[in-house]
């Protein structure tokens, strides 16, 4: 790790102004991606701004929405009785991220800011049509994800929370990489206020994407059989040591069928 100055501001405005005022300053959430990046010297921040003291952790459930603070850990979401009641698929997704130690430090805000092409939360956010709330604005899921590790966030913009509209039905199925448990393919299906939506993570060369053909099939007929009839082309899907694009295309279909069946 290169050396850096460390700050732990107690107010969001302070954190945002430090980050906005210095292009080389970087935010730190749980460090689950950021610390290894620093260790590999892939990044040389002038300042590391720890978001831990900003009070950005917590879960608020109203009748129609679940709002999760950016610094809320995966373990907290997984264990939350409120989330389990309102969006059980989201609690389950959080409980299957990585391993226990990762879940105690990794955060929803860090996951979404990072937008790893194999991460789980992006699929939930896109399929449920959630809103990313920052210190500056509210960003709809459809405008937020902009390709592998790319998002609509501007330099110095801090995610403060994520608002999920409560769906009538939802489920997430992932074919996990057995070592890291990141998604080799993960499919989130949802039917709710934002429509019938299917989001695929782990497969696309440009990160998470909506599967429009499956959405149309499910809008007509919400059943595992309906998605079974939809072919997923391998074009644009990832090929790596873990799986070929063709295999991933096949897994998208399998995970989608299982997700629809699980959603009921």
């Amino acid at each position, binding site marked *: 790790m290169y050396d850096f100055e460390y700050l732990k501001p107690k107010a969001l405005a302070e954190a945002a102004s430090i980050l906005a005022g210095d292009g080389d300053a970087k935010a730190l959430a749980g460090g689950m991606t950021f*610390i290894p990046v620093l260790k590999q010297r892939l990044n040389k921040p002038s300042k590391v701004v720890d978001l831990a003291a900003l009070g950005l952790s917590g879960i608020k459930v109203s009748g129609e929405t679940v709002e999760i603070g950016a610094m809320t850990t995966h373990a907290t979401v997984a264990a939350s009785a409120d989330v389990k009641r309102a969006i059980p698929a989201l609690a389950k997704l959080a409980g299957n991220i990585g391993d226990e130690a990762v879940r105690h430090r990794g955060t929803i805000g860090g996951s979404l800011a990072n937008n790893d092409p194999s991460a789980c939360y992006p699929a939930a956010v896109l399929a449920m049509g959630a809103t990313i709330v920052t210190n500056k604005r509210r960003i709809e899921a459809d405008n937020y994800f902009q390709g592998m590790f790319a998002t609509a966030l501007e330099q110095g913009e801090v995610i403060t929370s994520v608002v999920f509209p409560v769906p009538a039905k939802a489920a997430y199925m992932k074919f996990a990489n057995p070592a890291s448990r990141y998604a080799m393919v993960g499919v989130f299906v949802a039917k709710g206020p934002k429509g019938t939506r299917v989001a695929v993570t782990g497969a696309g060369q440009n990160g998470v994407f909506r599967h429009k053909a499956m959405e149309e099939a499910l809008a007509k007929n919400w059943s595992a059989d309906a998605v079974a009839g939809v072919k997923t082309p391998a074009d644009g899907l990832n090929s790596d040591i873990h799986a070929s694009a063709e295999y991933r295309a096949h897994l998208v279909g399998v995970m989608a069928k299982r997700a629809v069946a699980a959603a009921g």
Partner: protein
Amino acid sequence: MTRPEMAGPGKTAITLAVNGTSRQLELEPRTTLAEALRNTLGLTGTKIACNRGACSACTVWLNGQPVLSCMTLAIDAAGQEITTIEGLAHGEALHPVQDAFIEHDAMQCGFCTPGMVMSCAALLERNPHPDAEAVRDAIAGHYCRCGTYPHVVAATLAAAERKP
């Protein structure tokens, strides 16, 4: 606007609460908790193996929850209660999980053992009567290159039986 707390890039005085004792250290902010424990405090029970979150050998507790000390900055752990493998036993009396690991030969080379014990002991704190599946889930992040997993599961289940 108040000035936020600022430290580094050089050495800075920080206080860590380790195994119930307050320890004063001089560290650069880039120091990980694992490095601070091992190199500065001499608590070498915590192991560094992969040093990037893939093996869990460095597992310690922060406020009672297992975390990866190689992926946590020491300065970020200030103000939180840190428990390492050295803090698990009460004097000569080993923690039930430690006893059970010995009885069940739940270690071979031993390098992954402190981390495994921390995760298994944390599991029994929140779930005093786990089944084998729950133990396997608790150690899902741990690599044991000797392949002692079945013994770790057996030891943890045995410790749960014995724990008052």
